[in-house]
């Protein structure tokens, strides 16, 4: 491969595919560690709900076939992989015969629509705040830093619960949950969109504020670190003005922050899912919440898989962008060191 950047790309791609395989394998193996036959358990649970016995029979055999639980483990594994590549994520237990794929497909846009803007805007605003705070120092810095410290260490869902209670239940400014008003049908009308935005604000705020806090702290630390480096001192010695030096520092401090962005997608996921549940927001989080309650294993597995894929993809994209921006990375690939 002549083009060094293409080499970098390929390297990263191989790595991520490997990670994906590990994740998929874990996704496959772990639930199968449940002792006993999960299908029997589920079917029994349904029996107590007063379902007809011949329906139960059909359910049982369908599931056994789908799961292939009668076949040896490695065959199950290959079946699983094959299914995934065909985007067949199985059938839900509780919403039978709803396909997992469809359920997740409906929920995913809501999750992406909430999390991606929240993480991105939190990152941008947080970095700006952190850098500015480092530069300004003094009172501004103390206040901003303390606030950031407080906000970044409150779990999103705690903030979410507080917001929901205060602003929605108590003071009625915002709706009490859901992605849109109960009973309305999602259309592309202006009315629907404003309604959706109204429902969007609280979950968005809960996440963004915490994200800003976290980023600000990291960026501030990086900026302070950079502000005391040798190259800053040298530039000052040559009489270069502060504004220009700030630009140097910001650029250099940003680079590790980009890696931080990639990582945020993964670490924020847990809290984001719960935040969705708190607001009954129709995303993957609420889906997962109900799936766990109903022990709907195919749905749970489908959700975890999709979450993993989403995070890995986000990571991958950010790593590529990073490779573009940092000349040192490009140099390593170009083999100049």
């Amino acid at each position, binding site marked *: 491969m002549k083009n060094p950047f293409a080499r970098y790309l390929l390297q990263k791609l191989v790595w*991520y595919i*490997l*990670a994906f395989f*590990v*994740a998929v394998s*874990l*996704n496959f193996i*772990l*639930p*199968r*560690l*449940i*002792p006993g036959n999960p299908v029997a358990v589920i079917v029994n649970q349904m029996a107590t709900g007063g379902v007809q016995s011949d329906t139960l029979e059909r359910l049982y055999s369908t599931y056994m076939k789908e799961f292939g639980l009668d076949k040896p483990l490695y065959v199950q594994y290959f079946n699983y992989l094959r299914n995934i590549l065909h985007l067949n994520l199985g059938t839900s237990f509780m919403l039978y015969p709803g396909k997992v794929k469809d359920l997740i497909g409906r929920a995913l846009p809501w999750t992406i629509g909430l999390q991606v803007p929240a993480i991105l805007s939190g990152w941008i605003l947080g970095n700006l705040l952190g850098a500015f705070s480092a530069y300004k*120092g003094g009172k501004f*810095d103390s206040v901003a830093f303390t606030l950031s*410290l*407080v906000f*970044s*260490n*409150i*779990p999103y*869902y*705690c903030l979410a*619960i*507080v917001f*929901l*209670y205060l602003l929605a*239940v*108590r003071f009625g400014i915002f709706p*009490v*949950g859901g992605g849109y008003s109960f009973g309305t049908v999602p259309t592309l009308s202006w009315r629907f969109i404003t309604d959706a935005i109204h429902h969007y604000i609280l979950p968005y705020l809960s996440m963004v504020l915490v994200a800003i806090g976290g980023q600000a702290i990291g960026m501030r*630390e990086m900026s*302070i*670190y950079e502000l*005391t480096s040798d190259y800053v001192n040298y530039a000052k010695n040559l009489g270069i003005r502060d504004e220009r030096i700030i630009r140097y520092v910001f650029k250099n401090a940003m680079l590790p922050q980009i890696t931080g962005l990639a*990582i945020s*997608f*993964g*670490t924020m*996921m*847990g*809290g984001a*899912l*719960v935040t969705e*549940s*708190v607001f009954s927001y129709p995303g993957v989080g609420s889906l*997962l*919440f109900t799936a*766990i*309650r109903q*022990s709907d*294993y195919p749905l*749970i*597995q489908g959700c*975890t898989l999709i*979450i*993993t894929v989403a*995070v*890995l993809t986000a*990571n991958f994209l950010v790593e590529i962008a990073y490779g573009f921006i940092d000349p040192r990375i490009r140099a390593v690939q170009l083999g100049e060191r």
Partner: protein
Amino acid sequence: MKDIIILLFRSKRFIVGFVLFLGVLSFALIGPVVNPKNPFQMVGGLFSPPSDKFILGTDNLGRDVFTQLMYGTRTSLLIGCTAGVIATSIGVTIGSIAGYKGGIVEEILMGITNVFITIPSIVILILLSIAIKTRSAIVMGLVIGITAWPWTARAVRAQTSSLKTREHIDIARITGFSSLEMIIWEILPYMFSYIFMAFILQFSGGILNEATLSMLGLGPFQTVSLGVMLHWALLWEAVRTGAWWAFIPPVICLSMTTFSLMSMNSGMDEVFNPRLRRS
């Protein structure tokens, strides 16, 4: 050592965090001793607000919220601590071996670490939690611990790598210490502050992870924790009903705990990383 402690107590952030944490800790430890009621006992009306009889009211099943809070905080702290100890131990072991040995050992260990950093830990946590039969507090701590180590491993490896180049290492190596002895006696002592800070981070993270898992419904069986309290609140619509006493107290406890730990950490960072000090 004494100077370090004196310095730490000069840091405002550390003191704030430390005091808050002590408060939470005493509440969790002393509370149940002084007030040995059963958090699962139904003692009052459903969702009744705070009164003289019940300081924090009752939940949807008529159980005393205040008692739940005490026991819940204790459980959360226990799980967090267990997770912290396990994650830190694994992380330090893997990180120091990788950093010290270098070469192919480092590549392999770091490769594994990186894979587990990239895969979102919540996913592994969910999958593990539904797979295990009994979910006691300790087991949960264990599960969280074995998914949280990669960060510590990476950080410890970086530190070990740079410590490795110091002169006293070469001298010790010439005197014939084995790799294990080298790591334990010559490298780890210098990283003590670092490891301690890593533990605090893991402790805090463990508490958060437990809360997240519990809120999703994967919490410990037959036990009350802060996360479990919030789960119940979610499940039984405490928020929408306005029964603030069922969820605001656990929210406050949870936030205070994580905040105090991170504040301590921030204070320690200031003291141990002089470059970050602004004079």
